[in-house]
């Protein structure tokens, strides 16, 4: 009996020792030396592995950023400037400030405004519906409302509003990782500069149909009437394919365009009502001035035409 115990203990100890030696040898032999800065960069990153930076994950980002040492291209949208500052400290390079972005929903066609023209009964996925047909409403550009974007969001920063059928972005949680943008087959979601004081202005419509057709499809569709473009002092609004588009780089957030839209589909976030009212009055006064000026010029031109003797 004692022999059995002895042999068991001896053989197990032997196996243990042998394994330890082999493991030690293998770990020495195949040791990979990695730049220790990679680990330090990784430590300051959010480690959400969302892929928003364009790299497969946070480790890959750390590797890439250590290798290139250039912070102007590689940027972690989730961590934003504070994290990138820390990364810069680790690498000992100058930090590059980038404006934070946020995802915006560029469709306002809620149930109320955009009537259903048929009932979709396929698998509940926007991607599948989008390859089947143009959608269950008249508008071929609008949100399909099955929430592929909500599924794609790793940060629980989105939900589908049951009353409108449109996705809603929770400002504080959105990290601009781009996942929802990639998931949307209709390109409704777009990354937009977060803006000073979280204020931003964008057109919540993508319908490129002619005005009359677009309005038939959706009561708040942009008809491309160009009133907003005319009102803009900074030429930030252009009309292309019957659709108004705001250039966020040129937009000065003056908000004077907001009430030119007869369907109120230029969205201004985090503006106080007073500010919007002020902007509206401002624009009206300016337009009044410009109109008067034009009339005066017209009158002048008219008098000039009737009195040809007047010296030029």
């Amino acid at each position, binding site marked *: 009996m004692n022999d059995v115990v002895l042999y068991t203990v001896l053989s197990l100890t032997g196996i243990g020792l042998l394994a330890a030696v082999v493991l030690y040898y293998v770990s020495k032999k195949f040791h990979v030396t990695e730049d220790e800065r990679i680990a330090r960069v990784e430590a300051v990153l959010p480690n959400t592995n969302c892929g928003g930076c364009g790299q497969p994950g946070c480790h890959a980002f750390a590797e890439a950023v250590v290798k290139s040492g250039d912070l102007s291209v590689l940027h972690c949208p989730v961590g934003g400037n504070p994290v990138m500052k820390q990364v810069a400290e680790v690498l000992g390079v100058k930090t590059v400030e980038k404006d934070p972005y946020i995802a915006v929903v560029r469709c306002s066609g809620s149930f109320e405004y955009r009537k259903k023209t*048929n009932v979709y009964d*396929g698998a509940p996925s926007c991607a599948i519906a989008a390859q*089947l047909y143009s959608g269950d409403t008249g508008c071929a550009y609008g949100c399909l409302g099955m929430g592929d974007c909500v599924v794609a969001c790793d940060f629980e920063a989105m939900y589908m509003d049951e009353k409108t059928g449109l996705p809603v972005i929770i400002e504080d949680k959105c990290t601009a990782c781009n996942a929802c943008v990639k998931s949307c087959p209709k390109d409704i979601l777009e990354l937009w500069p977060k803006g000073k004081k979280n204020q931003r202005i964008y057109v919540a419509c993508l319908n490129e149909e002619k005005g009359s057709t677009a309005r038939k499809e959706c009561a708040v569709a942009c008809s491309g009437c160009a009133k907003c473009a005319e009102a803009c002092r900074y030429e930030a609004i252009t009309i292309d394919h019957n659709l108004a588009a705001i250039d966020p780089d040129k937009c000065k957030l003056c908000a004077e365009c907001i009430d030119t839209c007869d369907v109120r589909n230029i969205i201004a976030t985090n503006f106080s009502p007073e500010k919007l009212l002020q902007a509206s009055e401002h624009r009206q006064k300016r337009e009044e001035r410009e109109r008067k000026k034009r009339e005066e010029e017209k009158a002048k031109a008219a008098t000039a035409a009737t009195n040809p003797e007047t010296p030029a």
Partner: protein
Amino acid sequence: MSQSLLTVAPSPHIHTELTIPQVMRGVIIAMVPALLVSVYNFGLGAVYVTGLSILFCAGAEWAICKFLLKREPTITDGSAVITGMLLAFNVPSNLPWYIILIGSLVSVGIGKMSFGGLGNNPFNPALVGRVFLLLSFPVEMTSWPQAVATWSLDGTTGATPLGILKDGLRAGETVPALMQQMPSYTDFFFGFQGGSLGEMSAFALLIGLGYMLYRKIITWHIPVTMIATVFVMTGIFWFIDPTRFASPLFHVLTGGVMLGAIFMATDYVTSPVSHKGMILFAIGCGVLTVLIRLFGAYPEGVSFAILIMNAFVPLINTYLKPVRYGRKK
């Protein structure tokens, strides 16, 4: 347009009528003949055990969904009823209620719901419960009442033909001598033998198989292959030495081979998906059953054989691909 809105969906626009609840109903109907034989043989005990088992299994699934997983209970798909029936088919008809309760909880709780419910369990839930009970309550699980219709819950108990065989051989007797003590093959076929609730009558089980094949619920691949494997393999041993090994017909008709091959091994979830895979799986089940019966410690090996082969199913599914069109090299 006064007409209500048209529906749009990707093709196909029609669907077979054989949906999950229909399939489950079909399997339950297929099990009825075996149940009837059992009621005829064991009387009230069979009704009692089966009823309790179904009740406990469905109740367990309902409670787990409702209170643990906090989701819509899924008992309407009928799979819990089948698990309950199969569990009952695999136990003696005089099992006390608390053992049935434990068996049901293990079957549904550990065997199925812990993996995410219907479709995700690697092992046949009823067999998980059965084997758990066999290991935990060996005495209760192996004292089978004799096949006499008694309408009281107590009866005389005894061993199964396989048990008699195993014990006899261990005691040094020969097969022909042991066979003298047993009922005839016709009795085995129609179900006059001791044993678990559902494995009494090969005839009743074959009716069930016929029904399931007719309704296209299962294909022939698993049951036929598994029974044939047991027959052929025991036949080879019998041919070598008929004094030490029983005849292939005896092996096929007694114990759980029929029940296992027809109702347990064919479980959709825990059997391979392709026909090739099914055949391989069934051969494995048959071979293991015979090995356990002839050389193992237990007189019966169907449950263990199927459970062991269940573990190979993901592997079989990954490596045995169906014949592809147009990819011949």
